[in-house]
């Protein structure tokens, strides 16, 4: 371990960059950003490709959030969908006509314009909702983190999974529960329509012109990327990685465990909430069926495919899986079973395909597509893995 840190320092390269010199790294980063910015100009603004780009960008935000919890801090979270749900419901509560009798039936409107101004319900500006979603999910993340503080690895996975399922159940059955005169959620029917994004100085977004949506999503991606990089190279980021590598050693070096772990949950959750609020507005519905366990695995698969803890890897993983899920499976390969004379729909199997990907990835390339430097060293050269090492060779 200590050798790994020393080496990465002496080369002046941060872990996870594959050891490229600094100028090349910055150049590559700028090129990738520029590519992402001009990309939508080549496609039909209302078309399927644009739709996929927007979804991919939103998933990148979520995957980067989960990467903080799982990749940096090493806390396996199988209930990330909870934060998606909380973010989406924040948007649903404060950006739709769901609370029909709020404000005496006339609605509450803050910083919104256009036709929305006359609708009942609570309507806040999108940016305001984003801030609220971030606050709500940060608190939720820390609350979910609290009971896991004393637990070891796999138990954390189970507790987070349980929380994710509880939130999902509340979303599904919430239409039976009334609080403050309205239903808690709208169950499987969903809260719809949800306000479109309405930014100051721009026209209200529509579902026909997807380019503005993409740029908002891209802006979120840039913010999250920046935060991710800064956090990783900060004192806190190093504390997370130390915790991930060896909890006892980290604690005895004076890293405050409770604070560090809770901050990982909180930050990771905040990004999930941000993306959730965006997706609620973009998909125009907050539907309980969106918040299932399989979604948590979908996001986790992105992180693992890309490489746990590697920021660019996770971005790549999110894009690849999003394309597979939203384009390759439904549009390209969907006729495959029929061509082979089989009678089923490939979209039904998408999670089986993800499961297969997870298994194959773990067996063939457990470090992911673009591995984090430190982790690759561990996995290939077996530096610093003292846990669960018992080779079993037949005598």
């Amino acid at each position, binding site marked *: 371990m200590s050798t790994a840190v020393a080496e990465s320092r002496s080369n002046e390269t941060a872990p996870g960059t594959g050891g490229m010199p600094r100028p090349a790294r910055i150049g590559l980063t700028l090129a990738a950003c520029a590519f992402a910015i001009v990309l939508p100009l080549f496609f039909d603004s209302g078309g399927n490709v644009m739709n996929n780009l927007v979804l991919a960008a939103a998933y990148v935000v979520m995957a980067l959030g989960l990467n903080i919890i799982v990749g940096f801090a090493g806390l396996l979270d199988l209930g990330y969908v909870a934060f998606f749900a909380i973010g989406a419901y924040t948007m649903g509560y404060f950006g739709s006509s769901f609370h029909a009798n709020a404000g005496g039936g006339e609605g509450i409107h803050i910083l919104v314009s256009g036709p929305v101004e006359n609708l009942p319900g609570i309507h806040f500006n999108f940016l305001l909702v984003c801030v609220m979603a971030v606050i709500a999910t940060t608190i939720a993340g820390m609350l979910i983190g609290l009971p896991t503080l004393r637990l070891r690895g796999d138990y954390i996975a189970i507790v987070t999974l349980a929380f994710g399922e509880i939130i999902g159940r509340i979303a599904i059955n919430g239409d039976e529960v009334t609080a403050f005169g309205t239903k808690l959620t709208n169950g499987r029917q969903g809260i719809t329509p949800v306000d479109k994004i309405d930014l100051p100085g721009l026209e209200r977004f529509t579902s026909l012109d997807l380019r503005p949506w993409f740029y908002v999503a891209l802006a979120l991606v840039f913010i999250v990327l920046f935060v991710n990089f800064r956090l990783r190279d900060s004192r806190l980021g190093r504390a997370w990685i130390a915790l991930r590598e060896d909890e006892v050693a980290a604690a005895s070096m004076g890293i405050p465990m409770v604070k560090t772990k809770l901050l990982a949950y909180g930050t990771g959750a905040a990004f999930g909430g941000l993306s959730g609020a965006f997706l609620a507005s973009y998909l125009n519905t907050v539907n309980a069926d969106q918040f299932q366990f399989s979604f948590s695995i979908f996001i986790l698969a992105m992180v693992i495919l890309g490489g746990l803890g590697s920021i660019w890897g996770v971005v790549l993983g999110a894009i690849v899986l999003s394309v597979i899920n939203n384009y390759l499976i439904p549009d390209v390969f969907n006729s495959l079973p029929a061509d082979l004379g089989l009678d089923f729909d490939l979209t039904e199997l998408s999670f089986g395909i993800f499961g297969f990907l997870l298994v194959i990835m773990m*067996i063939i390339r457990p470090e992911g597509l673009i591995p984090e430097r430190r982790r690759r060293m561990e996995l290939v050269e077996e530096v610093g893995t003292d846990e669960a090492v018992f080779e079993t060779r037949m005598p």
Partner: protein
Amino acid sequence: MAAASLPASSPAPVRAIRAFLSRFGLIIVLVAMPAVFAVSDLVNEGNLSRLGENLIDGLSNGSIWALVAIGYTLVYGIIELINFAHGEVFMIGSFVAVSLFGTFGLTAATGVPGLILGLLLSLVISMIACGTLNTMIEKVGYRPLRSSPRLAPLITAVGFSFILQNVGLLWRGGSPQSITDLINSQHTLVTILGVPITNGDLLAVCVTFPLVFLMTTFIARSRLGKAMRATAQDPDAARLMGISVDTTISLTFLIGGMLAGAAGLIYALFQTTIWYFQGFTAGLIAFTAAVMGGIGNIRGAVLGGLIIGFIQQISDNRIGTEWTPAIVFAYLVLIMVFRPSGLLGEETREAG
């Protein structure tokens, strides 16, 4: 680890409360719900027969969870892995059993001797099928990853769980299927103190308890069982003593899978509905049971399974089926908060 996260010096009353909670917290939490309903029953109806019904149904449900939970607990005890695919193995067990009922031509009109023979055959075959499946999963998914970080096999386990779910989906479609009620499971055999005992209850108990008894005897008495316990305690030392660790781990998966297969058959007969998603919920419920009893501990898994069955039945009957998963998971979280080592204590290497 626990000591590191707690402040070193807290005032005496706080420490006393903490000690009290870690000792009795879980028991209080467990007793609270039945107690509340018992009081409300006594006030409203003047007797406890409804709670008794819940208890009996809960026990027969719980014996299914107990069988699945043993699989979790054995595997965790020996390689410290939460075998996420275990619930799906249980689901496949149900599917195999139901297909076998069709193959053997079992219907509600089949005579008693034929029915018993057919069911026994189906039981054996589905146990073998699930045991083999579980062993294969271990060979393909977990064995190559033994020296990688802890996260890796956990993730392949989740992957296998999804793959098997999709196998189930392709096999029998996406909606719950009801099957013929072969054993007339709701038929009341006897009524004790106003509590009816049905055919289904009898079947669940009659299959589960002999199997659990066989299991525990096997692990306690046989050479292979001894090898299993040795490997669970210290794989390195076990290997030095000439135990083939690989074979022992495979055997553990085989036994776990066989029990899941048996549970699958009972579930199909008892609930008379099967669908591809049953394994996911069942897996989580059974895992909760295993943790509640103390992971790695077989008697704990059985106890946990029965308690969870009871809780689930109360919740199904009085709060609403749609809330049951949420309630079971809430219990899981509470167990983790109050006593992560479970009621009877863990038997794993880390617990020392």
